[in-house]
């Protein structure tokens, strides 16, 4: 009886969460929805070079992560972003970090400060400045950190997942669902991504 109840409870919770996922209508911000083709870009990296998605000939996909120096949530996730890059770059899904903030509004997010941060933290991935803030609105990034998983297809770079890295910014040890890892793993295996959109508190991008 007890097992039965637990099972039922699980079934109900699962149904409820799948319903709420459906309710979460696409376009909660004006950017991309799952299945859209994402634009490429050419943005300046902290090493001075311009970086585009198309530079990565062998890539199977990309983790485009809008993040910045100053937001406490972005800072809380820096080590986890490095770990994602280390895990998935060799599987063909590198991290491309983009700072979308306007340095005039948020001086500590300026290009020089980005260089310092990348150096201090030992970023293993490009950290690009969205100079002129042209790219983040196309993606529909609203806050930092905000992840867009793209899959390279014949038609272009298809958006497969939008949202948070995992379900516990405070304490990595207490994470129960690793949204991004689950999404990349499913994508690489050609399987359906069970949770393809998530929400998280974050710092509004400064324009």
């Amino acid at each position, binding site marked *: 009886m007890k097992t039965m109840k637990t099972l039922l409870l699980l079934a109900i919770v699962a149904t409820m969460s799948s319903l709420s996922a459906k309710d*979460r209508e696409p376009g909660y911000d004006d950017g991309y929805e799952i299945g859209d083709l994402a634009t490429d870009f050419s943005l300046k990296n902290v090493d001075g070079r311009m970086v585009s998605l198309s530079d990565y000939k062998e890539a199977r996909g990309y983790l485009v992560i809008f993040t910045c120096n100053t937001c406490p949530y972005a800072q809380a996730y820096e080590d986890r972003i490095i770990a994602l890059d280390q895990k998935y770059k060799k599987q063909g899904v590198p991290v491309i970090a983009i700072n979308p903030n306007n340095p005039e509004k948020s001086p500590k997010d300026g290009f020089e400060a980005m260089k310092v941060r990348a150096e201090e933290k030992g970023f293993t991935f490009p950290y690009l400045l969205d100079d002129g803030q042209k790219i983040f609105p196309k993606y529909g990034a*609203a806050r930092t950190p905000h992840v867009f998983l793209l899959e390279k297809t014949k038609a272009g770079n298809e958006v497969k997942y939008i949202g948070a890295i995992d379900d*516990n910014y405070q304490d990595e040890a207490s994470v129960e669902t690793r949204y991004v890892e689950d999404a990349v793993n499913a994508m690489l295996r050609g399987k359906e991504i069970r949770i393809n959109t998530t*929400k*998280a508190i974050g710092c509004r991008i400064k324009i």
Partner: protein
Amino acid sequence: MKLLVTSVFFVILTFCKTDPGKDKAAAGETSLADFPPKYIVSNDSIKVDVYDFAGFERFLYIKDNKTYVINFWATWCRPCVAELPYFERLQKEYNDKGVEVILVSLDMPGMLEKKLLPFLREKKLRSKVVVLNDPKQNDWIPKVNTEWSGAIPATLIYNKENRAFYESSMTYEELENNLNTLNDNR
């Protein structure tokens, strides 16, 4: 099969168990002090209630005659801090007209004693301040508003008839207009 039906019924019952706070709210005045926090942070002069979402959710559904202005903010969010004086002014000018401002801090638990309490001591806010500390954000953000991306500042204005949600910074005039628009529709 019978077992199944019984179990479903049982589970639904568990979900629908009535909430004593809601009954009380339906009866008329609501005392916000009756909402039990998960824990309290304090220094000598200031004390703030900290809630998880399950405990906090009732602040979003108070069904008395007041209008509630619920602002989500944090001390690290500069645009949030910049608009706090407008919420304070609204609380001052509209409190006797049945408006209650509640400032919901999303400061991280490690920052409460270091940042939030000194901030509150310095600013001497007149509005009620509570802390919402619940890492399962993907679960609770849509329950505040399905349109909310999670960026702050964000503000919910509601009374027992209407609700409006704003994911943006506001000037005092915008805030006042939004409040009056909601109440004019009553």
